[in-house]
């Protein structure tokens, strides 16, 4: 039996009776300081718009040349997937799979699940299995590590700077934009508003 008017802090289990929190404000636990609610304006619409943008950028980031490497007249162009393929061929299968999950699969799954949840919700027709998808989305989140990959690019560029010239390709810029879009998308997603919308359509 659900208890509608109360909420428990996920970090310290203290019960709260949350007042209606105005948009843009944060409701935190009074004992441990965890963020309990952070309502956003037009949360569903904003997240949806950013998820669609993200999907476009994702396609671009994975189809155009990612980094070029110029040494003594030779130019080697690579895709985002080239490194993963190379690792796989060098018998580093586990590492290849891990890199593939954290830089390609998890972000894609994140974007697709957001789209699956938000688009039907916007059309006032919640998708079947929406909650299952939401649960998976929460599981995927920690494994989406594009921003860490970006730092990896910076380190590699500096490391190879003496040896050759590195030319960032179209995909690299799309990838960078995708990091910000995906972060903004997740930040503007307010689960409470998703639940409320869902209950409103039943």
């Amino acid at each position, binding site marked *: *039996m*659900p*208890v*509608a008017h*109360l*909420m*428990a802090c*996920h*970090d*310290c*289990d*203290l*019960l*709260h*009776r949350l007042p209606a929190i105005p948009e843009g404000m944060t409701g935190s636990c*009074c*004992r*441990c*300081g*965890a963020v309990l609610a952070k309502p956003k304006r037009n949360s569903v619409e904003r997240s949806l718009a950013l998820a669609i943008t993200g999907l476009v950028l994702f396609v671009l980031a994975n189809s155009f040349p990612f*980094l070029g490497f110029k*040494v*003594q007249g*030779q130019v*080697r162009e*690579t895709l985002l997937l*080239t*490194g*993963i393929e*190379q*690792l796989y061929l*060098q018998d*580093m299968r*586990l*590492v290849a799979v*891990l*890199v593939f999950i954290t*830089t390609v699969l998890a972000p894609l799954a994140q974007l697709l699940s957001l789209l699956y949840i938000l688009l039907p919700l916007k059309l006032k027709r919640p998708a079947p299995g929406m*909650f*299952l998808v*939401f*649960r998976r989305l*929460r599981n995927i989140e*920690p494994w989406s*590590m594009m921003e*860490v*990959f970006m*730092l*990896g*690019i910076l*380190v*590699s560029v*500096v*490391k*190879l700077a*003496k*040896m050759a010239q*590195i030319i960032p390709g179209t995909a690299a810029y799309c990838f960078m934009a995708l990091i910000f879009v995906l972060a903004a998308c997740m930040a503007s997603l307010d*689960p409470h508003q998703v*639940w409320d919308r869902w209950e409103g359509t039943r």
Partner: protein
Amino acid sequence: MRPAVRTALSASLLSCGVCHLLVRRPRGAAEPAGHCPRCGAALHSRKPNSIARTWALVIAAFVFYVPANVLPITKVTSLGATQSDTIMSGVIYFIRSGMWPIALVIFVASIFVPLVKLLILMLLLISVQRRSRWRPKDRTRLYRITEAIGRWSMVDIFVVTILVALVHLGALANIEAQPGAVFFAAVVVITIFAAMSFDPRLMWDVKEPQDECEYPA
């Protein structure tokens, strides 16, 4: 009279770990106490076997930490000459060539962060097992830090990925990944799972909630 401030556990309520819906606990229900009526996730008052699981993962991560740092992670072949690099020798290379900011990034992300994360988790585990009442708010903050920083350790794995993709020029220059990378990736993944399996609410279970909050819930 002010109503007593209570926790979900003491009020026989269960909080869904995914959608945060509060549910009345069925009488005499074992763990998992059913499923969330809204999102269908299994309901637990605390993460199952949190202490044992986290200890197991922390110990496993320590075991992998050794080969991750001792074995080479990359092998560079350039005009017939080969050179293997461990994480630390990469850091030393950057310091020698005067690129100390990059050396710092690699050192912090690959050596410092995993170790600090494991030490913090051990501290939290021991404090829970000793039923310590020492500064739960700060310990919760430490837990949040370990949860947030773990992912940045992946940076070295990504550097190896980018290097093997770019430096693939036949006899001229070639970079290959080495077994150290596998162990290092394992350390990162295991520590992320370790942080996930720890339940910060255990640190608060020994506290009496009444003397903490200014506002009644």
